């Protein structure tokens, strides 16, 4: 059976969990926290686009909602940070369900769906930049309160564990989807909606469920961002940067695969850092690098790094197999 096994997930997470035991470098840890955050956000996108074929350009809508709900509940209503974070995930899921219900009921597909998600994210960004509850143009600062109960920590290591746990959970969720009937239906919707309907798939409902799960995962990333950086504004929370990050990581890593977003996030972030080092941190240069990477991947490895690895493995296996076996194909 293809796809990621449970053992693979345990192995990868264990390897990543060992990093803080090997290094205490803040630079390394900060890099990994951000990369894992992107992997988490990208995994959300991957559920909807990679498995369901519904390409969103507006995952910022869910990331931002997760971030704002987490921050606003704490600062305006005195809600505990962990509860606020959990409600942030729920809020993101709700926004996902609402946008999904509107878009899918109108029968939007392909680029129309992408444009509508982009529009929703932009509307939310503009609303957040003027509404008093979001701190309007000033943004929201989460008051420093370095206690675990407040989801704030002295060092970076606890944050690293938390984001790694979130990524691990997202990997398990996606694997669970891959192994389930819902996952089979979701892939069927991606491959051919009419054929899916003909064999009894309620395509509207499957897409809506995928969008809700996708939004929840991405919202978890938003809530984590708020706690890690303790500041958000409309440009950070609902800005296009995160929508781009959400789709770039899985596309580079391998769309519709369990490990694609994680792999892609690490590769993309590494390239971004190298570009910064080489050029002395010219502003916007990482974006240029990302654009270049995206073009290369789409042109030469449309299945991403994961697809590249699979085809290399197949080629290797074919080279090793004896000639009479080859005659079968």
């Amino acid at each position, binding site marked *: 059976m293809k796809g990621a096994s449970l053992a693979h997930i345990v192995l990868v997470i264990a390897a990543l969990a060992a990093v803080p035991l090997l290094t205490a470098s803040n630079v390394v840890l900060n890099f990994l926290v951000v990369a894992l955050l992107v992997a988490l956000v990208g995994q959300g996108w991957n559920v909807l686009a990679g498995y369901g074929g519904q390409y969103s350009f507006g995952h910022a809508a869910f990331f931002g909602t997760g971030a704002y709900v987490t921050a606003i509940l704490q600062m305006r209503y005195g809600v505990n940070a962990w509860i606020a974070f959990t409600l942030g995930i729920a809020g993101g899921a709700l926004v996902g369900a609402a946008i999904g219900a509107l878009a899918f009921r109108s029968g939007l597909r392909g680029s129309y769906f992408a444009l509508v998600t982009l529009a929703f994210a932009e509307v939310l960004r503009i609303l957040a930049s003027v509404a008093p509850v979001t701190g309007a143009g000033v943004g929201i600062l989460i008051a420093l309160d370095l206690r675990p109960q407040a989801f704030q920590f002295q060092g970076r290591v606890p944050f690293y564990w938390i984001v790694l746990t979130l990524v691990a959970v997202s990997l398990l969720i996606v694997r669970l989807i891959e192994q389930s*009937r819902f996952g089979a239906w979701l892939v069927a919707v991606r*491959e*051919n909606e*009419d*054929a899916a309907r003909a*064999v009894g798939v*309620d*395509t509207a409902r499957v897409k809506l469920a995928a969008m809700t799960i996708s939004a929840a995962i991405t919202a978890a990333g938003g809530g984590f961002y708020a706690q890690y950086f303790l500041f958000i504004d409309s440009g950070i929370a609902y800005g296009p940067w995160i929508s781009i990050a959400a789709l770039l990581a899985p596309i580079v890593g391998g769309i519709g695969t369990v490990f694609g977003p994680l792999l892609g996030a690490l590769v993309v972030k590494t390239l971004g850092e190298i570009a910064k080092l080489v050029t002395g941190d010219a502003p916007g240069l990482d974006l240029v690098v990302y654009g270049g990477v995206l073009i290369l991947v789409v042109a030469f490895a449309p299945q991403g790094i994961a697809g590249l690895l699979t085809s290399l493995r197949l080629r290797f296996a074919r080279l090793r197999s004896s000639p009479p076996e080859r005659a079968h194909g």
Partner: protein
Amino acid sequence: MAEPLLCLQHVCKRCGGLLAVDHVSLAVEVGRITALIGPNGAGKTTLFSIISGFLAPSEGRIFHRGTDITGMPPHLLARRGIARTFQIMQPFAGLTVHENIAIGAHLSRRSRAEALDAAADVASKVGLGQVLERPAASLTVAARKRLELARAVATNPELLLLDEVLAGLNPGEVAAMMPIIRHLAGRGITIVMIEHVMQAVISLAEHVFVLAEGRIITQGAPQEVVGNARVVEAYLGHGAAARLAAAGGTHV
């Protein structure tokens, strides 16, 4: 007389100014192979799309086991046991043959393993057992037709709507496909087939409806219908006889 499995009453479909389906009433008896024939553009596929819920009729009602199913969406009809194949094959192109059929099998099976087992079983019955792990996109036309059939059969339908599953096949492939269809009917599946290959219609179908320009012009046992002057005219007028001969090698 037993209640018909499927019953259409005065079904019409307007496409702009054209009446693509014009007051079609017909009844499909349980357990039979019924054929729907007619020249190109007669409205056969449109009628199938209406029955399977992909198009809403402009007028008329459709009953399944006495229940009004007019306007019911395709996935609910599939759950009621009405399955269809597509004339223009619609595989899940990026998936393997096995996965394609499993999606049909999932209709009545939640477990992935059970669906895959059932899919392998169906695949071997329709002669796709050897190509289970091949991507659907890599199949020949004949194999894709079988895949269409297998995916629909995997849903465990009681009524199977086959839209030209023999079209585009060479005589050898047609001959190989016919026992499969007969076997399905033998398992108790009621079959309605749109077909141009007359040899297959005559040997498989117990009842034939002839559709021309959206209307049922006649119906009956295949032998009678084929000799009917109006049918011959409907076909020959459109020059279909030559194409039939080429495709099936029959003498109409």
